[in-house]
């Protein structure tokens, strides 16, 4: 048979009528033999009835309007993926950039003066007639007395230009 201690947890569900049929039978069997629990169940029923007497209040008339106003003031929430959604301006800019890249890439490289059509970086392809020029360049590039010369006023770029012209 159910103890009074176990009955404590079942008492309110019994008063509410929220017990399973088997549990309800067990509780009723206990109540038939236990006057103290029977009294307590009746008192809990009375308390439950008293709680029903408290009136409910109604939200004020402006309640809904205030909630709606706050909802309307909420910022529009976008998912992080939406940041990648193409806008017309971004799409136009991206297209222009792509076209420019293709156009620049398809242009023939500007030819240097004296550069042959078949010139290549591979040393095996170097024309033997160009060797003296390359050797002179190597000597001039490592010629220490030239490093003592004062720096030109125009800047570093002019150095390169001058070097190229010297060649």
């Amino acid at each position, binding site marked *: 048979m159910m103890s009074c201690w176990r009955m404590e947890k079942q008492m309110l569900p019994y008063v509410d009528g929220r017990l399973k049929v088997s549990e309800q039978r067990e509780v009723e069997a206990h109540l038939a033999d236990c006057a103290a629990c029977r009294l307590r169940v009746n008192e809990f029923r009375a*308390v439950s009835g008293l*709680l029903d007497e408290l009136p409910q209040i109604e939200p004020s008339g402006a309640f809904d309007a205030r909630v709606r106003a706050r909802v309307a003031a909420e910022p529009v929430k976008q998912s992080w993926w939406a940041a990648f959604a193409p806008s017309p301006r971004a799409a136009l800019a991206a297209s222009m950039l792509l076209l420019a890249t293709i156009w620049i890439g398809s242009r023939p490289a500007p030819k240097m003066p004296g550069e042959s059509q078949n010139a290549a970086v591979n040393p095996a392809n170097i024309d033997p007639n160009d060797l003296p020029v390359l050797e002179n360049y190597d000597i001039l590039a490592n010629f220490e007395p030239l490093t003592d010369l004062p720096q030109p006023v125009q800047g570093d770029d002019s150095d390169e230009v001058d070097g190229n012209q010297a060649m």
Partner: protein
Amino acid sequence: MARSDVQLMLDVKAGDEQSFALLLQRYRSPLVNFLYRMVRNREQAEDLAQEVFIRVYRARADYVPSAKFTTWLFRIATNLALNSLRDTRHQRTEISLDAPVTADADDREERTLDVADKHPDIEQHLVEEARKAMIKHAIDKLPEKQRVAVLLHKYQELDYGEIAKILSCSESALKSLLFRAYETLRVELAPLVAKG
């Protein structure tokens, strides 16, 4: 056929603002009443109820119907109420738990709404007033967690599993909590219980 709470919330998630209005209509009164019984101040209860709805709305994109909608809703409301009570505790004038039962502004409002028209007899009216004030006082005196349990159980009629989830405890612990709350109420309301 009326759409379920979960379906309405899923519709809100899909961008249907009208479904949110239906949820507002469905739960504004239960929420305001629950919060009013918790914080004992009507204006504050309405502010908190608004905050609950705003939080629901903000969370719509991430809503997953893993539990009952009411569990989620009243969990938000409970947390807000308990935080509000904690935050304002130091601001409140110290009200002794043994203070005599007096009718405050909200009590008077309830009286006006629900009793005055029904009971023209002034003596009967006053008796009922005192009775209601006593019941209200008994609920107010309950410890916060017990009060949440009683309010959700008695007035919102949530099942034990839902209330246990809201209070983050087991169903067994909840039943013990409710038993202790009803024991306290039984003692506090003994004069009325005996008459009943």
